[in-house]
C-alpha cells in the first residue's frame, strides 16, 4: 500500500493508496473465490486497474479446516497500471486457522489481518497443526501486523436471526459479512454486489435477502465498531479511454473462438473432455447454443480431438481444449490433423506436470511437447497468451492461422492466466481482423482434375467440404503423393512432402507481427525475453528497473512457432538475453539452438507464478556480471 494522501471524515481517516493487494483465504467451502470476484468486480467498475489470482486446491472439498482445504483468492487493485496479482498482500482475510497458517508468510509486515474468531477454536487450531494451547490470535505472535479478530460466524448469525434460515444457510452467508466489511474499509459501494446477489438467487428470495443482510451487516459493523479508524481508498487508474469489462483468461479464450468463427463465417465446433484448468472453456461455449455453437463433450480426450478433426473435415471451425495429460492423449490425432492439413485449434491450458502433477497450479512446461511432441516430422504453429485478456487475442489468432494456413495450431495458455482476471478494453466486432477460409467448389487441376494437395504461394492447400459436388476424394494418415493426395510410398516423395509441410508452417512468419521491445529500447545491455503468462511479472520488474536507470528491455513472444522473422536479429542487439520461464528452460533451448545465443535461463517450477521481486533480483544479479 503506497500511501499518497490523507483526508479526514467523521472520526475516520480516509487514506488514499495507489495500490492494494487483498488475499481472501478460507476453507474450500467458505466461498472465498466468489467473495474475491465480487470485490474485484466492484473495484473494476470503479475504474481500478487490477489483476487476480485464484489459488485453490485440487480437492473439491478437502476435509474442513485442514491445510489441504485452504482456498485463496488474491486481487491487486491500483490507481496505476497493474500487471501482476502482487508479490505480497496488504490485507489477509483468514476465515480459519489453516488459512492463516498457509497465507501469513506472504502478508506484508504491518499488514492487516481480518481473522474470523470462530475459525480459531481448538478443533480448527489442531487441524491447522498448531500445538495444543497455541492460538496465534492470542499469543502475540501477530504483533507486527494490524490484527482484527472478529467473530464473523456469530455476527452473521445475529444479523440473520429471525429470518428462519437453516444453520447451514446462515453459515453460508458469512462470506458476505466479510465482503461488506471490506467494502467499508476500502470505501467501496455495495450496490454492485447487491445486484449480483439478487440475480444469482432470483429464485430463492429468502436466501438473497439473507446474503444482502449479511453484506450490509458487515459494512455497518465496520462503520460502528470503531476499530477501523483508518479507511483506504484506491483511486481509478488512468487507463486508456474506452469501454472496459473484467475477464478471465478462459472466458476470453471462449469468446475469442466465437468471434473468430463469426468473422470467418464458419460454424464453431468444440470437441472436448473436462479437465482442470481448461474445463471453463467447454462450459462457457456450451452456453452459446443460440449462436449455433456446437459443443460435444466427448467420451475421452482422444474423442475430443477426433470429433474436432471430423468437424474440421466437414467445414467447421473446429477446436479442442485440454490441459497437459489430455494433450498427451491427443498427440496421435494431432499427427493425423497435421498429415491431413486441416484447420484445427488445440487449446492447452497448461498446469503443473508431469502426469497428474499439480492440476490446479500453473506451469509453462508443455512448450517442448507443443513443439516436438509428435512422432515423425510434424511441425505445428504455436501461439501463447501473455495475460487473461490476451487469451482473446491469441485464441483469435490461433483460429486465423489455422483457417488461413490449413494447419492445426496449438494455443498455449496456463492455469495462472486462465483463472486470473483483469480489466479488458474489449474490441468492436468490426475492428477484428478478417479471416479467409480457402474453400473450393470446382476442380483446381488441369483438365478439370481435382488436386486436393495443390498449394498456393504460401504452401497452403484448399479446404474441400464433403457435400461439394464433383470433388469427391479420399484423405488419410498415410503419406500422400504431392498434389493428388493419393497414397504414396515413394521414397523421394516422402521427403518432398515433409519439406512442404514444414515450409507451410515457416511461411506463417510472413503473416505475423515482427518482434519489438515491449518495455525499454530495441538494443542495449540486457533483454528479458518472455513468453506466456510471465508477462506481468517481467513487465513490472523491467519497468521498475528502467525507472531506476538500468539498461534493460522486455521482449515478449506471442508467436513461438514460427518465431517472428526478425527475432534473431533483435536479440543479437543486446549483450545479455535472460529467459525467465515456469519450466526448466524450454524456450531457452529453442532460442539457443536457433540463434546460437548464450542466453541465460531463469527457472521457477513451483506451481506458482514469478513475483516481481524475484524477477528484479535475478535481472540485477545478471546485469551486474
Amino acid at each position, binding site marked *: 500500500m503506497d500511501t499518497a494522501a490523507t483526508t479526514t471524515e467523521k472520526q475516520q481517516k480516509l487514506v488514499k493508496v495507489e495500490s492494494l493487494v487483498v488475499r481472501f483465504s478460507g476453507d474450500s467451502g467458505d466461498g472465498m473465490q466468489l467473495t474475491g470476484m465480487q470485490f474485484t468486480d466492484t473495484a473494476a467498475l470503479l475504474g481500478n486497474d487490477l489483476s487476480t489470482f485464484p489459488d485453490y486446491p485440487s480437492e473439491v472439498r478437502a476435509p474442513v479446516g485442514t491445510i489441504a482445504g485452504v482456498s485463496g483468492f488474491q486481487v491487486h487493485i491500483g490507481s496505476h497500471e497493474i500487471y501482476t496479482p502482487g508479490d505480497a498482500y496488504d490485507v489477509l482475510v483468514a476465515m480459519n486457522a489453516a488459512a492463516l497458517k498457509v497465507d501469513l508468510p506472504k502478508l506484508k509486515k504491518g499488514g492487516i489481518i481480518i481473522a474470523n474468531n470462530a475459525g480459531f477454536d481448538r478443533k480448527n487450531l489442531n487441524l491447522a497443526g498448531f500445538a495444543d494451547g497455541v492460538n496465534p490470535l492470542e499469543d502475540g505472535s501477530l504483533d507486527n501486523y494490524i490484527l482484527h479478530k472478529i467473530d464473523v460466524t456469530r455476527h452473521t448469525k445475529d444479523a440473520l436471526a429471525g429470518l428462519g434460515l437453516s444453520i447451514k444457510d446462515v453459515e453460508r452467508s458469512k462470506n458476505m459479512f466479510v465482503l461488506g466489511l471490506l467494502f467499508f474499509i476500502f470505501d467501496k459501494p455495495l450496490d454492485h454486489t447487491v445486484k449480483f446477489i439478487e440475480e444469482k438467487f432470483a429464485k430463492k428470495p429468502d436466501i438473497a435477502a439473507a446474503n444482502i443482510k449479511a453484506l450490509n451487516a458487515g459494512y455497518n459493523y465496520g462503520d460502528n465498531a470503531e476499530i477501523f479508524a483508518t479507511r483506504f481508498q484506491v483511486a481509478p487508474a488512468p487507463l486508456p479511454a474506452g469501454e472496459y469489462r473484467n475477464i478471465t483468461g478462459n472466458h476470453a479464450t471462449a469468446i475469442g473462438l466465437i468471434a473468430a468463427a463469426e468473422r470467418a463465417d464458419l460454424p464453431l465446433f468444440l470437441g472436448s473432455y473436462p479437465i482442470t484448468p481448461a474445463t471453463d472453456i467447454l462450459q462457457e461455449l456450451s452456453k452459446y*447454443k443460440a449462436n449455433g455453437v456446437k459443443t460435444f463433450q466427448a467420451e475421452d480426450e482422444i474423442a475430443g480431438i477426433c470429433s474436432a478433426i471430423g468437424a474440421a473435415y466437414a*467445414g467447421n471451425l473446429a477446436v479442442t481444449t485440454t490441459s497437459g495429460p489430455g494433450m498427451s492423449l491427443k498427440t496421435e*490425432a494431432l499427427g*493425423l490433423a497435421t498429415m491431413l492439413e486441416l484447420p484445427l485449434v488445440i487449446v492447452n491450458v497448461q498446469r503443473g506436470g508431469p502426469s497428474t502433477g499439480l492440476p490446479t497450479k500453473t506451469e509453462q512446461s508443455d512448450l517442448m511437447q507443443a513443439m516436438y511432441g509428435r512422432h515423425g516430422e510434424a511441425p505445428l504453429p504455436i501461439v501463447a497468451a501473455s495475460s487473461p485478456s490476451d487469451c482473446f487475442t491469441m485464441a483469435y489468432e490461433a483460429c486465423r492461422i489455422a483457417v488461413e494456413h490449413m494447419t492445426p495450431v496449438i494455443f498455449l495458455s496456463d492455469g495462472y492466466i486462465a483463472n486470473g482476471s483483469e480489466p479488458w478494453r474489449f474490441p468492436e466486432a468490426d475492428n477484428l481482423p478478417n479471416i479467409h477460409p480457402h474453400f473450393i467448389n470446382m476442380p483446381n487441376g488441369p483438365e478439370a482434375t481435382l488436386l486436393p494437395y495443390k498449394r498456393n504461394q504460401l504452401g497452403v492447400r484448399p479446404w474441400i467440404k464433403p457435400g461439394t459436388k464433383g470433388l469427391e476424394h479420399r484423405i488419410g494418415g498415410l503419406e500422400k503423393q504431392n498434389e493428388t493426395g493419393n497414397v504414396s510410398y515413394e521414397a523421394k516423395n516422402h521427403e518432398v512432402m515433409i519439406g512442404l509441410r514444414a515450409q507451410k508452417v515457416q511461411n506463417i512468419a510472413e503473416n505475423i507481427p515482427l518482434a519489438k521491445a515491449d518495455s525499454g529500447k530495441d538494443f542495449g545491455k540486457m533483454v528479458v525475453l518472455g513468453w506466456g503468462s510471465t508477462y506481468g511479472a517481467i513487465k513490472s520488474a523491467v519497468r521498475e528497473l528502467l525507472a531506476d536507470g538500468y539498461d534493460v528491455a522486455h521482449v515478449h513472444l506471442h508467436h513461438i512457432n514460427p518465431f517472428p522473422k526478425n527475432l534473431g536479429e533483435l536479440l543479437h542487439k543486446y549483450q545479455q538475453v535472460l529467459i525467465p520461464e515456469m519450466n526448466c528452460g524450454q524456450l531457452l533451448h529453442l532460442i539457443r539452438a536457433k540463434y546460437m545465443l548464450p542466453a541465460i535461463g531463469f527457472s521457477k517450477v513451483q506451481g506458482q507464478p514469478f513475483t516481481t521481486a524475484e524477477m528484479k533480483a535475478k535481472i540485477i544479479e545478471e546485469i551486474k556480471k
Partner: protein
Amino acid sequence: MNTSIIEIEDTPKLSAKDFASGQEVKWCPGCGDYSILKQVQTVFPDLGIPKEKIAFISGIGCSSRFTYYMDTYGMHSIHGRAAAIASGVKAANPDLSVWVISGDGDSFSIGGNHFIHSMRKNFDLNYLVFNNQIYSLTKGQYSPTSEKGKVTKTTPYGSIEEPFNPAELALGAKATFVARTLDRDPKHMQAMLKRAHQHKGTSFVEVYQNCPVFNDAAFFAYSEKDSKKDATLLVEHGKPLIFGNNMEKGIKFEGLKPVIVDLNADNISTNDLWIHDEHDKTKANLLARFYDMDNNGEAFPRPFGVFYIENRLTYEVGMLEQIEAVKTKKGKMPLNKILSGDKTWHIF
C-alpha cells in the same frame, strides 16, 4: 422426429461402377473384404444418395483401406478412432450419409471406448465392423474376438482370454440397431446394408469376414453348404425361429429359457416357437447370447439378420433441436454483446 434429413435428388441412377474410386484394390486374394466392397458398391445406387453426400470414415487395419476404394468422400484415419471422427463429421454436417468402416481390433480393442459411446450417443451413422477374429494387417495376432485357446503368433500356447461377442456388447452399450451378416452371403449382406441405411441412428452391422491368410475358415461353419443350414439361424421380424438341414428345428421358450425343439415331434407346431420381434430388447439380448449358449450340450445356431431396432432421437437431431429451441427462446446474441458481456464501465 427422426425423419431423414438426407435429401434425395432427382439425378440419373448411378451404377455400382460409379462408386469405384479407380484406386487399385490391394487386399489379399480371396479376402472377404472384396465381397463386402462389392455388396456396398452394388447396394449404393439403390440408396439414392448423391455421391458427394456420402463420407466413409475408417480406422486402421485391413478393413479400413475400404475408404480408398469408394468414389465418395472419405477419410482413412487412425487406429480405433473412426467412430469419434465420424461423430464430428455428422455433428458438423447432418446432411451427410456417414459410414464407419472398422475391424474387430479397431473397434473392440483400441477403439473400444469410442465403439460403446457411439452406440449410446446414437448419431445417424452406419457402422460396419469386419470381424475376422484376428489381427491381419500386423500378420496374425489374436484379436478381442478370437476364441479362447486360439493359437496365434502372440499366443503360441493358445489364448487365455474370453472373447467379446460384438452383438451383445452393442446391445449392452444401448445400440439402436444391431445386425449380423456374412461375407459369403451377398444377398443377405445387401439386405442388411439397406436396413442399416434406413435406420435413423447408429446402425451396427457385424460382418463375419474370412481372412484366408491368417484365420482361414473361421466362419465356414456358417457359410459352407454342408454345415450352414444346421449352424445358422436367419432371423426375420415376425417369423418363427426355424433352422436345420430340412428346417426341422425350432427354438421355443421354456419359461425364460430358449430350447431347441424338433419340429417333427408330434406335440410341437410353429405356433409354439419364438417369434422374432426386432423391437424386443430382451429377446434381442438372448439372441445375441446364442453365440455361447448351449442347449444340453448342443450349440445354438448362430443368428444372422437384424437382432434389434429402436427408434430413438439421434444425437445430431437432438443437438439441432436444442440449438433451434434456444435460438427461438433467446435469439442470437450479437458479437458486440458477447464481447462486452453484461458489466462494463467507461474510462474517459
